[in-house]
């Protein structure tokens, strides 16, 4: 038998490993790099979002209500340049969405140019901002289609990462990855992070290196959340768009 001192010794050793991993010196941490659930490049993106700074809230103008959206991926190769501001992204989203749905933007963020990650696997902490790198807009809010309201988030940014990296980060169970005729790489899937919670993901890496990332969910958090956590409240039994509808939006040639 052991006593509680041994348990505290174990805690102290685990703390030591945590500290060592944080500064990137733990051999044990490197042992499992190959099976990390979240690719470091994606973590860099998430960290970039964390250090983005100001978030301000501004209602968007709803679009017009809706007929049925397209349900198959576009094969067009024409894409505009990446949007440079949340307002730019909102304007483009309104065009792409057409009469598919209405939406209201509740958060507009500008993520500093902390990506793409040129050296994946070399850092696990917050990344310094590159003042010369372009900033990327990220918007989120509510979206209503067919009488169902849910949440959405949308971001377009340049990256070295593959689109299916977001499947892992978003806990997508059945990630489907394909290559479109124009060479774009498309990843789609659905996550069910908690009982009753449904989050659809579509992530398109375009030939120009920009990634269009969109989530729609039936909770306050479009990526889904634990039921008793922030973002865990339900809007509806299902997301406002089907996965096919979401895919059609992300692959639209109207961006």
């Amino acid at each position, binding site marked *: *038998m052991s006593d509680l001192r041994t348990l*505290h010794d174990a805690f102290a050793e685990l703390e030591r490993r945590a500290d060592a991993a944080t500064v990137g010196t733990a051999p*044990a941490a490197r042992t499992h790099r190959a099976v990390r659930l979240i690719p470091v490049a994606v973590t860099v993106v998430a960290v970039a979002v*964390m250090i983005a700074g100001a978030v301000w809230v501004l209602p968007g103008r709803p679009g017009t209500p809706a007929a049925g959206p397209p349900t198959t991926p576009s094969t067009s190769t024409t894409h505009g340049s990446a949007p440079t501001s949340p307002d730019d992204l909102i304007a483009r989203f309104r065009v792409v969405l057409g009469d598919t749905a209405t939406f209201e933007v509740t958060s507009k963020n500008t993520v500093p140019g902390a990506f793409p990650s040129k050296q994946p696997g070399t850092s696990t*902490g917050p990344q310094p901002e590159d003042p010369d790198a372009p900033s990327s807009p990220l918007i989120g809010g509510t979206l209503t289609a067919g009488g169902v309201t849910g949440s959405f988030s949308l971001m377009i940014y340049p990256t070295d990462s593959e689109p299916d990296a977001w499947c892992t980060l978003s806990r997508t169970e059945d990630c489907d990855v394909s290559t479109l005729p124009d060479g774009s790489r498309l990843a789609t899937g659905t996550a069910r992070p908690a009982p009753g919670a449904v989050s659809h993901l579509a992530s398109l890496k375009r030939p120009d290196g920009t990634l269009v990332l969109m989530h729609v969910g039936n909770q306050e958090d479009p990526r889904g959340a634990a039921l008793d956590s922030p973002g865990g409240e339900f809007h509806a039994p299902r997301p406002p768009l089907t996965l096919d509808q979401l895919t059609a939006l992300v692959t639209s040639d109207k961006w």
Partner: protein
Amino acid sequence: MEFAEYVARQRPALMRFATVLTCRTWLAEDLVSDVLGRAFEHWERISGMAEPHAYVRRMVVNEYLSWRRRLTRISSRADVEPRVISDGADERAERDAMIRRLAGLPRKQRAAVVLRYYAGLSDREIAAQLGCREPTVRSQIHRALNALRIDLTAGVADFQETS
């Protein structure tokens, strides 16, 4: 408090907590990154709470407990990180054996033990964090201590239970 300031101050503590909880540094990194990403999205609300750090730590516990599917999927590879044991290092051997037993606990039992003996929470506070009743907490801890082969009567005074 600005989010960046919070991360700078508390990320090391969250990493330690998550590592004790998961027994795996790489998994703790994922867990903390994921939770901080979610916390950022709701920081305006969280920062207005009386104890933002306690709330974020609860998010870590919730996230950890909700990772059943992912942890099950990787369980064959997610063994406790191996450590080299020096000849005659009995204390380290005992400590590492304890880590292995800790890693082998069911998640709720492990969370209860960590919240009690690492975070120092009371039964009532643990019950609130785990979403269960106090008798359930006591039962989880009792089973966990048996599995960990810990004899409370063999402990020294400064490691007595806090509630």
